[in-house]
């Protein structure tokens, strides 16, 4: 009896979670004229696959930008985060706690506040309009959260391991390479998943700091929605296509995600 209730609850919740997704898929398969509020749940006869092709055509030139952006920014973020976390967890010095607190606090700044000064700054150092500039911006604004994740994760690694390596003669980078890095895979996965999702879906910086040749697909996604008269099948199809890479990352790395969270967040 208890088991039936449990599965009943789980299935009900799964339904709640999948309902909106079902709606997205449904709308993507309809012709524009048939997308109305009243018929929102009806399955189209026949399904209209054109939207996906149109969306893909709009994405294709920008897809590469998104991939380069998300992958390189995520890798750099992970590297920076792991080094920072390592320092804060295993090599604390006077004031390092305060520095950590200051870095963390920076996470809360709303992006609209800094849009204008950021733009002016990027322009003055010549990085406005380039994909590299956008990568840099995402890495920098990702520093607080990746540092948090790695620091929490590394503080779980027993100090004795570090001590043992030091007695064996390893220095700062030696310990990092031989002791810390091999144990870091789950944390890298957590950071990779979080940063990839955030960067892949980010719109404001993407649209302001780039020129048309360096825009990622979030801009193309907004483009599909058009201006005054929106044909909803296109943005919905686009949203599904845009979410696929992230979904792929979740499915493939989902197991490691848990292992990483387990170790990285238990002690807060």
């Amino acid at each position, binding site marked *: 009896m208890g088991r039936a209730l449990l599965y009943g609850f789980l299935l009900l919740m799964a339904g709640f979670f999948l309902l909106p997704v079902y709606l997205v898929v449904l709308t993507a398969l309809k012709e524009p004229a048939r997308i109305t509020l009243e018929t929102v749940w009806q399955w189209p006869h026949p399904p209209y696959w054109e939207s996906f092709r149109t969306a893909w055509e709009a994405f294709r030139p920008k897809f590469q930008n998104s991939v380069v952006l998300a992958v390189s920014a995520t890798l750099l973020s992970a590297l920076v985060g792991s080094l920072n976390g390592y320092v804060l967890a295993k090599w604390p010095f006077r004031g390092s706690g305060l520095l950590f607190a200051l870095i963390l606090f920076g996470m809360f700044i709303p992006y609209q506040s800094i849009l204008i000064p950021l733009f002016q700054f990027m322009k003055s150092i010549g990085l*406005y309009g380039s994909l590299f500039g956008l990568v840099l911006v995402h890495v920098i604004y990702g520093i607080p959260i990746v540092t948090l994740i790695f620091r929490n994760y590394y503080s779980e690694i027993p100090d004795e391991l570090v001590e043992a390596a030091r007695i064996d003669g390893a220095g700062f980078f030696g310990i990092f390479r031989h002791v810390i890095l091999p144990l870091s895979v789950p944390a890298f996965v957590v950071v990779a998943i979080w940063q990839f999702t955030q960067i892949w879906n980010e719109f404001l910086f993407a649209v302001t700091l780039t020129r048309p040749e360096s825009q990622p697909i979030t*801009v193309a996604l*907004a483009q599909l929605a058009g*201006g*005054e*008269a929106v044909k909803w099948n296109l943005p919905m199809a686009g949203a599904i296509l845009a979410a696929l890479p992230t979904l792929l990352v979740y499915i493939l790395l989902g197991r490691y995600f848990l292992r990483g969270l387990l170790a990285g967040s238990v002690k807060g």
Partner: protein
Amino acid sequence: MRKWLLAIGMVLGLSALAQGGKLEIFSWWAGDEGPALEALIRLYKQKYPGVEVINATVTGGAGVNARAVLKTRMLGGDPPDTFQVHAGMELIGTWVVANRMEDLSALFRQEGWLQAFPKGLIDLISYKGGIWSVPVNIHRSNVMWYLPAKLKEWGVNPPRTWDEFLATCQTLKQKGLEAPLALGENWTQQHLWESVALAVLGPDDWNNLWNGKLKFTDPKAVRAWEVFGRVLDCANKDAAGLSWQQAVDRVVQGKAAFNVMGDWAAGYMTTTLKLKPGTDFAWAPSPGTQGVFMMLSDSFGLPKGAKNRQNAINWLRLVGSKEGQDTFNPLKGSIAARLDSDPSKYNAYGQSAMKDWRSNRIVGSLVHGAVAPESFMSQFGTVMEIFLQTRNPQAAANAAQAIADQVGLGRLGQ
């Protein structure tokens, strides 16, 4: 230093000779509105083959994202060569008073545009003796849409005044139509408001609101809110969650009788819903505004410091020309700003609108940037919200006046 100058001079000279270089056109047109702009760009490329045209559009409902990007760029000293902007105070109150735009009067005189565009329009786009943008299209704000077949079925006629409207509304409610007027989210409600206000005040007092001669707290202006409140009682209660297309859908499905919306609704009904203008759906000037054309216009200007100034000027020439406007507008679903455009290129709605454009009195729209600067427009939403929350005409009028005082409405002057 001199070698640098020489080199730069050579490069500039050569590029002028080749008429190459780039042209960056900044707009918020995409999706359904994309093809019109693209047709215009194709025309430009035919005339000026050496130029690389960059179509830098930033979409997002009615330019909300584009404005952020444009302002960020302009503040950072990186203006596009030309950008789309609503003609009138939206341009003047933001960019012209800040001394960021070039005066185009000479261009207007060269191209004979002072005769090609109606005087009412020229007045709206002039400021302190200069003319600041080239209108490429005209949309009409005060239009009421309905389905003739449905109206016949219910036995009513399109009302000619708001009093008639309220009476028709009662008749329809008795026939079982819960909400005879279809309405959408906040900005469409502002859109409705300006039709009501225009009818209540008349075109002269409407203009006086914006040049500071008539206060919002004047009883005439307060009356606009009173009528508006009564009109709202005829509208659907779930308006806040509907986009303007969904409101139009209500009329098409027979759940509502009327919808007051700009004439992009015609484009939506023709292109997306595949209805025939005149037969399947019809229109009339919104009640009480016959003979008045409340316009809004997309236009292009020339920012100071544009990197490819000559290319931009050529673009402006094209945009204001008969050929350019008659290429762009049939695809966009608007009408040309010029008085001499060719009616045969437009559908039934376009032709009817063109006739009105040539004969009616022209006033500017509030909601779409013609008569009030952005500092006022952006806060008018708050005034509307205050009214919707309290349904108190005096409170709304006070709020509007407070904002007008704060931004110095009317002080910018002509």
